[in-house]
């Protein structure tokens, strides 16, 4: 990810989406202001910020779901985007099986309702790869949180996207599921897929990502977690004092009021 200040009109082959001074407003309220961002095929970016900071709007700008009120969005030619929505927004009582969810995103222009042998094989292979190969005929409500998450990742991957966007993928999932997701996304990124995700989970997810954007209607900072997860940046992003502790090379973001006590516990734990 680099600032798009080169002033070129032609995109490099690995540039997937370029935002130039993109501003988004809902009514008179600005949701995002002057965003400059280039997402490459090798990028793996986490977007953090408080509720209402414009994280979901940023994803929508990248997908084309909303148009900027000023500035520009440029996408690579024939860019395919996979999108994983927040699990909280899914209607879990909707009558649909795992196979039906994955196959609804099939990229072919097939005009008949039933899937072709090739489509079924592709869906089965994806589900197998994500460790839920035996759940294709199950209703989505019958799965655990982690399995449900993987169904929607599988749907997004069905299009063989070059850019994968995930809205709050860590929300409502337990720690093992979060770890599995991190490994999966890491592998996908290594295979050449650009990844942008939003998260509220600073310690469980954001600190494990290679790049972060701290967002609060504008980009406050961007870079590796070690560079952007600083007290001043977090205070500007969240509008509240947050401290960052380091333990065994890992960052831990804590409420500044509780930081002293946490620091003491961390030090005690290290001594033991």
């Amino acid at each position, binding site marked *: 990810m680099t600032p798009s200040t080169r002033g070129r009109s032609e995109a490099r082959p690995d540039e997937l989406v370029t935002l130039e001074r993109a501003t988004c407003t809902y009514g008179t309220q600005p949701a995002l202001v002057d965003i400059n961002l280039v997402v490459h095929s090798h990028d793996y970016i986490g977007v953090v910020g408080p509720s209402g900071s414009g994280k979901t709007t940023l994803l929508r700008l990248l997908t084309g779901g909303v148009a900027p009120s000023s500035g520009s969005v440029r996408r690579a030619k024939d860019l395919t985007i996979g999108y994983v929505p927040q699990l909280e927004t899914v*209607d879990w009582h*909707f009558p*649909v*099986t795992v196979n*039906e969810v994955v196959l*609804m995103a099939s990229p072919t222009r097939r*005009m008949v*309702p*039933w899937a072709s042998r090739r489509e079924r094989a592709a869906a089965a292979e994806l589900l197998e790869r994500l460790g839920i190969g035996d759940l294709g005929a199950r209703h989505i409500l019958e799965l655990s949180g982690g399995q449900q998450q993987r169904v929607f990742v599988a749907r997004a991957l069905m299009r063989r996207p070059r850019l994968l966007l995930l809205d709050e993928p860590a929300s409502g999932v337990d720690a093992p599921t979060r770890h599995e997701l991190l490994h999966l996304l890491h592998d996908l990124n290594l295979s050449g897929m650009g990844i942008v995700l939003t998260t509220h989970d600073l310690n469980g997810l954001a600190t494990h990502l290679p790049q972060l954007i701290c967002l609060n209607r504008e980009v406050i900072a961007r870079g590796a977690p070690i560079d952007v997860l600083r007290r001043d940046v977090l205070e500007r992003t969240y509008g509240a004092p947050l401290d960052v502790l380091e333990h065994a090379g890992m960052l831990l973001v804590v409420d500044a009021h509780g930081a002293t006590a946490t620091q003491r516990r961390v030090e005690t734990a290290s001594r033991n």
Partner: protein
Amino acid sequence: MDLLEPFQFSFFTNGLIVATLAGALCGLVGVFVVLRGMSYIGHGLSHAIFGGAVASYVLSINFYLGAGVWGLVSTLLIGGVSRRRSIGADAAIGVITTASFAVGLVLISRYDSFTRNFEAALFGNVLGVTATDIYVLTLVAVATCAAIFFRYRALLFTTFDSDVADVFGVSTARTDALLSLALAATVISTMQILGVTLVAAALVIPTVIARMLSNSFGHIVLLSAAIGAASGFVGMNLSYHLDVSSGATIVLVCAGVFALVFLATTRGRRTMSARTS
């Protein structure tokens, strides 16, 4: 009782074909209406179109033309009003459709010279269907089946997850427009058969029954159409032998099946949870 006796009358055979086709069509379209949480729109649209039916009679224009234009305008108005967040879709449907229905009632009371029996439009009259009614219903059924067959994937994605469908390149606006058109055409073509007051039930009940029987969208589409068709066929036969209103009997057959399936699936769940505990 001779079950084959009514088949010697052509009016009954025609009525039976029309009732079965109308039941299947409502069951098919109803899946998308119910699963989008729009059950109320079927009820509202049939009432709105009643206003158009009466107006087209007063203006001496073709029923299908008048009711079609009226239905389209009502749908657009509902869409326009419901976009105001402070009002909401259900309230918009309530306002537009009841006002439209009231227009129909005012016109009937103003022009006493009505020779046409509007009870048919209100409560349905399967046995009074004309050749034109049969042609229109067949045309709407074939066109709707074709639209659902060829746009099945887009309809499923849009019904399940409209926001994300857009990201995946599905034209949700076009799919929504297609569904609105199919719904309006279904209501108009079945109104004379089932009646304004009963079309909504024919749209909703088969899907609700199918939902209790399956967790797969594909199965629900097929089941709902089959339940609608069977209810039309059985209801029509029953109405002849019991000498009662055909539209009401069709809906009562649907409601009876709903009650049976509800009891059976509730008992089945209880038995399963008793076994597992």
